[in-house]
């Protein structure tokens, strides 16, 4: 049954008519035209759909839209500010961490979520945190280097 819900996405308030059990990803992409989050597996397995909810990583494809009422949703589109890109985005560009790029939304959002809690996580922490973000192209090395740079490990040697 359709209800009118109020969502806060990228610091803006939106009123949308939607069934409360609709997943957040569909609302973001279809109703709000925010295509940063990608549809991958639809089962919460790959991480391509990751957004931030109150600064925490969230897999938007398994999250009913009703569950984020009253919470702050941030998509990839909301990371940048008028002053420039988010440092995580800058790091991914600088490290050229994309092949096809489909997973990058999830990678960037997950790193952002990790840095929100710990600005300088260890490399092990970064690897563990990204363990369940899948990449089909095999760009893992570049992705990890970008994440290390964003976490301030730039001056260190190697990545393995």
């Amino acid at each position: 049954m359709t209800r009118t819900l109020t969502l806060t996405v990228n610091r803006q308030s939106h009123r949308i008519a939607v069934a409360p059990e609709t997943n957040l990803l569909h609302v973001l992409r279809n109703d709000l035209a925010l295509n940063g989050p990608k549809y991958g597996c639809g089962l919460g397995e790959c991480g391509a759909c990751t957004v931030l909810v109150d600064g925490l990583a969230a897999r938007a494809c398994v999250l009913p839209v009703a569950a984020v009422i009253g919470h702050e949703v941030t998509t990839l589109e909301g990371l940048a500010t008028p002053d420039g890109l988010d440092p995580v985005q800058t790091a991914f560009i600088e490290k050229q961490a994309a092949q096809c790029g489909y997973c990058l939304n999830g990678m960037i959002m997950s790193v952002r979520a990790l840095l929100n809690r710990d600005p300088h996580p260890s490399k092990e922490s970064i690897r563990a945190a990204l363990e369940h973000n899948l990449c089909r192209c095999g760009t893992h090395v570049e992705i990890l280097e970008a994440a290390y740079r964003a976490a301030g490990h730039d001056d260190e040697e190697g990545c393995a």
Partner: protein
Amino acid sequence: MNASASHRSTGIDRRPESLGGEGRFGVVIRPPAYRLDDGTFVCSRLQGVDHKSVATLPGRIEVVVEGNFVGVVATSLQAAREAARRLRLEWQPLEVAENGTQQGRALRVESSHQENPAEADATLGRYLTRHYGWPSRMRWGDEPGWVVADHGRDRLDIWAPTTTPVLLERDLMALTGLAGEAIELHDVASGSGIGRHCGDDAAADAALLSRAVGRPVAVWLDASYARDVEALGQAQRIAVSVEWNAQGGIERYRNRQELVGSDTPVVALWLSGMLETRRHDDDVATGEPASPPFSPYVFRDQRLAVPGEARGSHDDGRALEWQHGFARESFLDEVARESGQDPVALRLRHLDDPRGVELIESVTRRAGWSWPTKASEEGSTADVRRGRGFAYAQLPDRHGRVEEGVRSAWVADIDVNRVTGDVRLTRLVVGQDSGPLVDTAQLQKTLQQRVLGVARPLLAREPSFDEWGENGGGNRDSSSMQESRRGLVAEARNVAGTSCSTPMTRSDGEPVSALSPLDEADLSPGVAVIANALFDATGVRFRQPPFTASRVRQTLQGECGARGGEAATGRRATRWRWLTGAAVVTAGAAAMLWPWKSPIAPVARPAANLYSVETIERGRLVAEVGDCVICHTAEGGIDNAGGRAFDTPFGTLYSTNITPDEATGIGNWSYAAFERAMRHGISRDGRHLYPAFPYTAFAKTSDADMQALYAYLMAQPAVSAEPPANELSFPFNVRALLAGWNALYHDASPFQPDPSQSDLYNRGAYLAEGLGHCSACHSPRNALGAEQGGERYLAGALVEGWEAPPLNTLSRSPIPWSEESLYQYLRGGESELHGVASGPMAPVVAGLGELPESDVRAIAHYVAAQMNAPASDADDVRLEAQQLVARAATSPAGLEAGERLFDGACASCHVDTGLPSFTQAKVSLALNTNLYSERPDNVIQSILGGVHATNVPGIGEMPGFADSFSDSQVTTLVEYLRARFAPGEPAWSGITERVSQIRKDDNKTHG
């Protein structure tokens, strides 16, 4: 023992704990039938007691028999109740003379507009006769409580909330043969004295039991004593008639006493045979000179009956004055309304006494009396009717001098809730002219105390477990009483003012004791004033007190064509008929089993505005607890329109349409039909309903909740939808067989609170056993589909392919539940030590979300008691949980196929990788009860269908993997989960078969 008796008594009060190890608990067993017919006591005769039937029970059980008085005494109330339930007694049935000898009932019918023969003349506006009654017991008591008796060799101590100590002492003397000095009554309640209640009967029961076992005995006084109230019926019946002239003036006034027995002795006295079972007013006549009851009014031709010789003293108040005053003041109100006059004006017309006239004028002016009262137009809503009444009394002083006596005028405003039957006294203006030397402050205080004392037994609700709201067990009654108290405080000033404004001097100068103005405070108009206000509010005349919620509700519902009250009486009668039938094995038993039930005539759908918003809201809560919508909504269908399929071992059932559609739903069901279905499982058309519909639990719902539920359902939108026909195999498709099923397994008796438990427990038990019908899912069923009780109660069961885990001590939860955890789980859908609600439990939690917190706490408290669970989680339990989680952190060797599936599909949410995540499963699988169960069903269900409940914050959303995993992949994954997260448990067998079966069943129900 005798020597210690006087010492022991000092430490005892009404709490049985004060008895120490000495004390025993007694339960009395009344005969299947007993009643007082016009002063003659008749009852079933006891013919045999099978002591063997309780011989196997543990602990010391003593059976006490004296004549037809039977009681069981044991070391705990529960043991005594169990023994009383099991004790086999043989009763000679009472020849039933169903010719309406029970005056109480006859009068009740009369009160709901059944006309007297004399009514024919009354239509001419000239002549009117009415009968008024006074009950033998005003009500069973003010609140449940213990009554304790300690019968030593030559002395008896009683702790009982009696309001009529003199009468009680007299009855105890007759019962025990002890002298008055040897009987001591403790804990005497300061009641209004307007009538006896069953505290006296319980005291006598306890005394007999105590004497028999030679120890102090505690008896629990509660609503079960209402049977005594009913059996003893009327103590007094008064007929009043008048003739009035064309100007409305009363020419002739007559009153006649048709039944005299203002003080009916205690039931134990009748049953034990100590009092001969014949007209009691014959044998103990005192020969006291009788004088006609005083009437302050002057009629041209007046004949007042001389009261018959009542037995015993009248020390306990002016019982007869009260009764005659009630009859007279009610009757004048009726006459005024019949003849179209202001009841106040009619009284003034026939009052010759200037002090009385001045008092009435002063009180009615202060109360803003006008005629017609228009009270009902001022603030009535759909359910609540307002009314205003007036009554007046004058009593001669103690020397019989009329001029010196007390005059008292009352105006009462009340609210009547038609649905619940609650009567609330909203404002009372009392004026009293008590003579010159009265301490007005003291009088004011006395009046306040005693006015509330009058109002409480007349109006009070039964203290109850079915109160809704944040106070849960809290008593709405007390709050409404407090409101009344506020209203009284404001008006009590007027009382003082009135008595000062009419200064009178006393001719003989006899001092009036300022310290005890009780004698001078005349409260007798208190009963009639409420009856008159009730009529003003509802148009129904109550000709016998008390006006308790249940009586008012029954009468008003009788008015509306619904038969709730009658149904309640019928239920009680049926139960006793059954017991009698079992004892004597007659055709009565066969008649009881006869499957055919008559249809209840269809009615038009009740108007949308018949019930108030408050009642409908209460009904909504009732519906939420009862989970109506879960079963009565098809997958993806419209709420409550029915059609959901239930696979039972006997075939497929479809739930019915319970929207108020007249053709396909319940729109043409009267309340009586609805209530019969809810309590007895019989459809409006007389067909039996299958017990998949948990009427076995719903039967426990209180009347008020049942009404509210009806109101709510009838206020919903009507949906035309015909559910599919049931597909049952023979013989289960023969509905008539359910009559036998019901006789075997269905107990339609309403919920009985357990006095040895707290209010919280009883509220929880009411919700869980009744509306919440926890056991419908959580108790295993026998081969015929009946819930199993005893040790199997809440022992877990399989429902709709999901396992409803045990809620008793058989719980297999890896971390034991606590009351606090249960509360968190029921309130938020998640417990940090146990996981989330899923499957059919998810909508249950969603429904509970609508309830006040206190109700959910009560359910948690009750379930915790079934589990023997502690109040909260101790630190060592949390430590244990951490260890379980740590133990499951690594994957066991040799299950790599399962590990791959888990890492790919599950780990992103079910393994903590250190990524701060909103969609992370908060509770580790290592704490999930489902993985520790004896069967894999819930794990398989969760994997295939996922976990969903969008409207409960704590219930995470998990996608179903039915479309992405094969049966063998699910099997591999389930094996892996069991091995990794419940390593101490043996591997499940037959997983593959369960997976394919559940997949098949889910496809069937989910289309």
